[in-house]
């Protein structure tokens, strides 16, 4: 009885925490300049995408090197639904989730038979191949892509309310909703099942877990969330095109997940902020010290790689997990 009560109050606390976080973000969006609001929206998109990867890799133990392709599917699904089927904008986000979840389920069915490097290879091939399909079909707009006009903010918000702030609100709301949903799912039976599979699939199977089905479910859910990130990205930049989803996007997401600590959702913000901040920092550094154009374009990659190596060396489970370990170690020490 006590345990039940504890879980309940935990989930209420979490809910209040998310509401509070939402209010802080809302207040923040009114304080900073427009470029920062735009970057905030970018961070929100990355948070969604990285959390979908953490769900898949960190919790269900399936590696994906091609998550950018799933993001692309979401973006294209939203744009095609809006352009060809005249679906209202708010509904396109749900369609993006559904279409990419469906695709994820198909992919997951194949992926459940693969593991380790084979799965990594298969997903990598997807990221390389999938976006260029758009080049072959006019309905997908070729290299130039499709326009996705998510509309202007409602007039009631006032003349000075920028479209980026509006996009930030939508993306931030989607992010909070997804994180809250994930927090709850990961603490449910499904979350425990996935962790059991990740830790030892034979033991999990012996305990009566249907491994194949669980893995496909994780893949579909992860793909659906990645699809939402794709729709938000399409909204933010106003278009989708094959080159908006390069192979490097998939690697960036993976890097973000590792920096965030791939086994915990708690640090997802860190990964996303780093991905958006690094090019900015590189630009500033290169400008300040009069670097050439080739320095500017290569510096972000160098910084990200350096951070990745440092993370793997120093905090392999991510900064959040590390802090938790340190705290619990201190806790143990103080008991003595």
């Amino acid at each position, binding site marked *: 009885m006590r345990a039940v009560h504890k879980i309940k109050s935990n989930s209420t606390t979490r809910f209040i925490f998310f509401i509070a976080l939402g209010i802080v973000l809302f207040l923040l969006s009114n304080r900073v*300049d*427009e*470029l920062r609001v*735009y970057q905030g929206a970018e961070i929100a998109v990355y948070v969604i995408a990285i959390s979908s990867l953490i769900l898949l890799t960190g919790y269900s133990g399936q590696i994906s090197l091609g998550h950018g392709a799933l993001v692309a599917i979401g973006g294209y699904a939203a744009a095609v639904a809006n352009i060809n089927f005249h679906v209202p904008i708010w509904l396109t986000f749900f369609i993006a989730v559904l279409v990419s979840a469906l695709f994820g389920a198909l992919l997951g069915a194949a992926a459940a038979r693969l593991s380790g490097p084979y799965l990594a290879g298969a997903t990598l091939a997807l990221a390389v191949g999938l976006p*260029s399909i*758009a*080049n*072959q*079909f*006019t309905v997908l*707009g*070729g*290299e*130039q*892509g499709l*326009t996705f*006009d998510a509309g202007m903010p409602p007039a009631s918000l006032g003349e000075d309310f920028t*479209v980026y702030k509006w996009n930030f609100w939508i993306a931030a709301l989607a992010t909070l909703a997804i994180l809250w949903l994930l927090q709850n799912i990961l603490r449910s039976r499904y979350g425990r099942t996935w962790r059991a599979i990740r830790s030892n699939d034979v033991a999990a199977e012996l305990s009566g877990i249907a491994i194949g089905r669980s893995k496909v479910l994780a893949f579909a859910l992860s793909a659906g969330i990645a699809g939402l990130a794709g729709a938000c990205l399409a909204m933010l*930049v*106003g*278009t*989708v*095109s*094959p*080159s*908006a989803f390069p192979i490097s996007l998939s690697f960036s997401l993976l890097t973000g997940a590792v920096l965030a600590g791939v086994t915990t959702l708690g640090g997802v913000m860190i990964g996303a902020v780093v991905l958006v*901040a690094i090019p*900015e*920092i590189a*630009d*500033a*550094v290169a*400008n*300040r010290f009069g670097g050439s154009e080739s320095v500017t*374009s290569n510096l972000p990659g160098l910084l990200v790689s350096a*951070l990745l190596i*440092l993370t793997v060396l*120093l905090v392999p489970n991510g900064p959040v997990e590390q802090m938790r370990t340190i705290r619990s170690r201190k806790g143990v020490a103080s008991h003595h």
Partner: protein
Amino acid sequence: MIVTNRRKFLVTSAALVVGALTLSAVPSQAFSPRSVDGVTATSIKLGITIPMSGTASPGYNKIPGAMKAYFDYVNDNGGVNGRKVTLVVENDEYVPTKAVTKTNKLVLRDKVLALVGPLGTSNNQAVAQKVNPGKRGVPVLFVNSGFSGFANKAKYPTTYTVLPSYIMEAKIMSAYIKEKFAGKKLGLLYQDDDFGDDALAGFKQSGVDFAVKVPYASGSQGVATTPGTWVSALAKGGAEVVVLFGVSSATAAALYASYVGKYKPQWILGSVGGDATTLAASKIPPSFLAGAIGTSFAPSPADATDDYIKLFMDVNTKYNAGVPFDNNIVQGMNTAFLTVQALKSAGKNLTRKSLMAAIDKNGSKFASAGLVPLNYSATSHVGYNGYWFGTYNASGALVADGGKYTVYTTDSGSGAVAKSTYTRPAMPAKGLPN
């Protein structure tokens, strides 16, 4: 010991990151005199988005260098009304999403006075929709796209076109085809988006029927086997005269596949993809190109007797050393030249508003290399509106038919194609804004 070292390492790297973040958060204006929308007492900041790398970049990636070279020439000779002009170049890889992100940087962070010569139909459309320079009052000068829609002042209030529209080009080309190639079987390669649709509208209006029409998705020219399928479709349809109405890389890919496949109809190259040096760089021998028909609104880059071309050649040699002089250089320098004319005309009290007002008022009289009239006015943001035709010679230079530039003009509506009597303004002394 190891632990403390590790901790030190961690703290140092964290401090580094935080330091860099703080540095990046300090506005760049803090280090230079206060600027309002890209203008200080001594400087003018402009921005451009253009493909510097990627499938569509060959040729276009030379334009910013040419623009900077002309600005440097002007700066070394006193600048414009005492201000030096700088150009911030952002590489958008011909990708609309990147164009949006990069334009955000130019407008929101660099706070440029104006965007000058941003390239690409879809890119400019995406930027107009998302970044919305029209609503922000940011001038988008001399867009490097012939999409007729950009002249729509209601939709793109701060955008000024410079290239004749693709509809105009198709209409003028139709008149030429009807005169020279009546009764021949015609083929057309075009880009399957607003760029191509504009051309199709022009050809349709002029009543030119193509026996074979090959649309290509932008970017598919980069797929190794695709251009071969275009050429076999054209050859199979028996096209005797083929219009290539694509970007440089697609035109080059089509010509190369034809060269390899030994298919040689009468080529007519659209202005967008007809730059000879870009084609030569794509392994197409000038001998294969010889006899092809091309079109332009500026003098031929090979025409050293032309005042403007001679100036541009000299500036290129001095300020853009080592870069071969070609049509891309002419385009870039001419855009920069027009920009300087506009900045000069806006006077000492330079703002975004005064800049646009100056173009509306005086734009039709600006000096430029163009052999075709400029049509700016309080009611029109249309730049050049015509073309002359020529034939590529054995060294790849476009030579005007009959040894002189005969210009035809028209509009993007239902107006007729007419021979122009326009004479362009003489070049100001030394090509400077005097």
